[in-house]
């Protein structure tokens, strides 16, 4: 198959179009984050400022908590803590459960798996009112703990699902050899399966992190103070209370995008494989 002479130029035209559609809006956001407020509110807005300003980034990193910018830093830390804890809990519980589904036979196996999937498919709206009431009764509203508890309820089934497929694809002979050498099931899991399954663990952990980082609805309902708010909730406030501060919205948005974008670009292979494997329900 010899490609025609139009093949390469037309492919790079497609590539240029893709780059424009993806990077164009990004570039506007970046410019907005360094443009002075007066220029942004002009008609038309001045998005090529003579004197770009990094004040907003500086304010987010140095302003005392209590201001809009200073609070954003606190909120970034909240998001990291909540997403990090959710990943830790769901990886530990998910690995154990996934191994049971992949390698053991027991009564009710299909039923339990079905209920896990069912809970995963439930729209948050069908759960949030009772969760809110329970949270209020336990005094957990407006805490980061409440978010970790709720997030684990959807990151865990995801990790469980992804890893049980992953474990099943590993040759059983690996463990059998270890077990003949005197390891128990759990010993074989920890010493033999986990090291081999590292790429799967990385995919699962990173995707769970991104899910928790992106989550908005529960955070909006459960949290209200800077002590527990996460990044999406803080960003949503730019459409209300600070609705015309587009510059700070842009700076905050770009900072909020840094962890997921870095993770996705660095671990591109893990992420794309994990997405493809996880999608097949």
């Amino acid at each position, binding site marked *: 198959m010899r490609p025609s002479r139009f093949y*390469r130029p037309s492919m790079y035209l497609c*590539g240029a179009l*893709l*780059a424009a*559609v993806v990077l164009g*809006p*990004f570039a506007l956001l970046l410019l*907005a984050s360094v443009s002075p407020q007066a220029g942004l509110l002009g*008609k*038309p*807005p001045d998005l090529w400022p003579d004197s770009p300003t990094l004040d907003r980034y500086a304010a987010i990193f140095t302003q005392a908590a209590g201001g809009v910018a200073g609070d954003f830093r606190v909120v970034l830390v909240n998001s990291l803590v909540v997403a990090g804890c959710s990943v830790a809990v*769901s990886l530990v*519980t998910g690995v*154990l*459960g996934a*191994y*049971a*589904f*992949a*390698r*053991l*036979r*027991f009564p009710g*196996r*299909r039923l339990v798996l079905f209920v*896990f999937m069912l*809970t995963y*498919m*439930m*729209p948050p*709206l*069908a759960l949030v*009112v009772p969760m809110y*009431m329970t949270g209020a009764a336990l005094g957990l509203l407006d805490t980061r703990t409440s978010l970790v508890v*709720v997030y*684990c309820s959807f990151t*865990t*089934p995801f990790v469980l699902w992804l890893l*049980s*497929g992953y474990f*099943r694809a590993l040759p*059983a002979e690996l463990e059998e050899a270890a077990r003949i050498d005197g390891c128990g099931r*759990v010993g074989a899991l920890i010493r033999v399966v986990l090291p081999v399954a590292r790429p799967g663990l990385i995919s699962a952990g990173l995707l769970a992190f991104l899910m928790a980082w992106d989550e908005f*609805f529960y955070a909006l309902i459960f949290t209200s103070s800077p002590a527990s708010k996460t990044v*999406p909730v803080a*960003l*949503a406030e730019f*459409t209300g209370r600070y609705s015309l501060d*587009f510059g700070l*919205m*842009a700076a905050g948005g770009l900072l909020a*995008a840094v962890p997921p*974008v870095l993770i996705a*670009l660095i671990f591109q*292979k893990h992420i*794309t*494989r994990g*997405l493809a494997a996880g*999608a097949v*329900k």
Partner: protein
Amino acid sequence: MSLTLRRPASTAPPAAGARRGKVERQWPLALALLAPAMIVVFGVVLYPMGRTLVLSLVDATSALQTAFSFSGLSNYTALLSDSEFWATVWRTAVFTVFSTAVELAVGLLLAQFLNQRIRGQWFFRSLVVLAWALPTIVSANMWRWILHPEYGALNGLLMNLGLLDSYKDWVGGPTQALFVVALVDAWKTTPLVAILLLASMQTIGDDVYEAAAMDGAGAVRRFLSITIPMLKPAIAVVLVLRTIEAFKVFDIIYIMTRGGPDSGTTTIAFYTYLKAFSNQEFSLGSAAAYLTVLFIFVLSLVYLRMLRTDSGGTA
């Protein structure tokens, strides 16, 4: 990157111990291994699942109410006979069909492009991953500003280029706003669709295409007669996933339009949210939530039926 789509868990091979005919009581160990995950998930979700079902069958109008009277299916019949509810369902259908169609069409072309062996492909694939990784709220905020009727970058750019005489309100009309919001959703989600389709495309061997080319099939013909049929299971997965997500879409609408103008972007998830949290009509909200679950369930089944492949598929 090569990846084969795995079969669902129910078709797992028999466990190693059982295969060798050794009698091994596995359920105590299985229970011990599964207990942490079950506590973390079922402990948090099952009670609210049941509680919401109960709420949908009583007359709760306050979060603090403790005594309810059973009202049967009256909340459901109230919704189903409410024209506002059906308008919401219609908007959700329009949003779902439009955004999914755009995502699938563009996603297929994009996956096909990403599957070409051209120099710099790593850069184009990185672009797609970049767009996918951008948090939904950041994307929604970004587009809200770009499309802002008074201070938006789009109006400004088009004015500067002389393409526009006066500022336009891109999300001004209810119908227009619904389509714009669906497009913003597509901008954010098409990369995911492309990634999923690409993974499946990479499992098709070159020899199939070469044989077809020998028989005189052109590029378009090869795409339509080989790629699309081979991708059927992946397309089914995408359709199910995207439909479920479209029914749940909340963040983009909350940020960009708050359901307006004139309820034009109030899809079923946002409607449920308004019922439960703005109007405190918890029972109606709960009934709407369970109707959503029903819709999702039925639609998923229909898709899987429609797209079931001869090989048994992933259904």
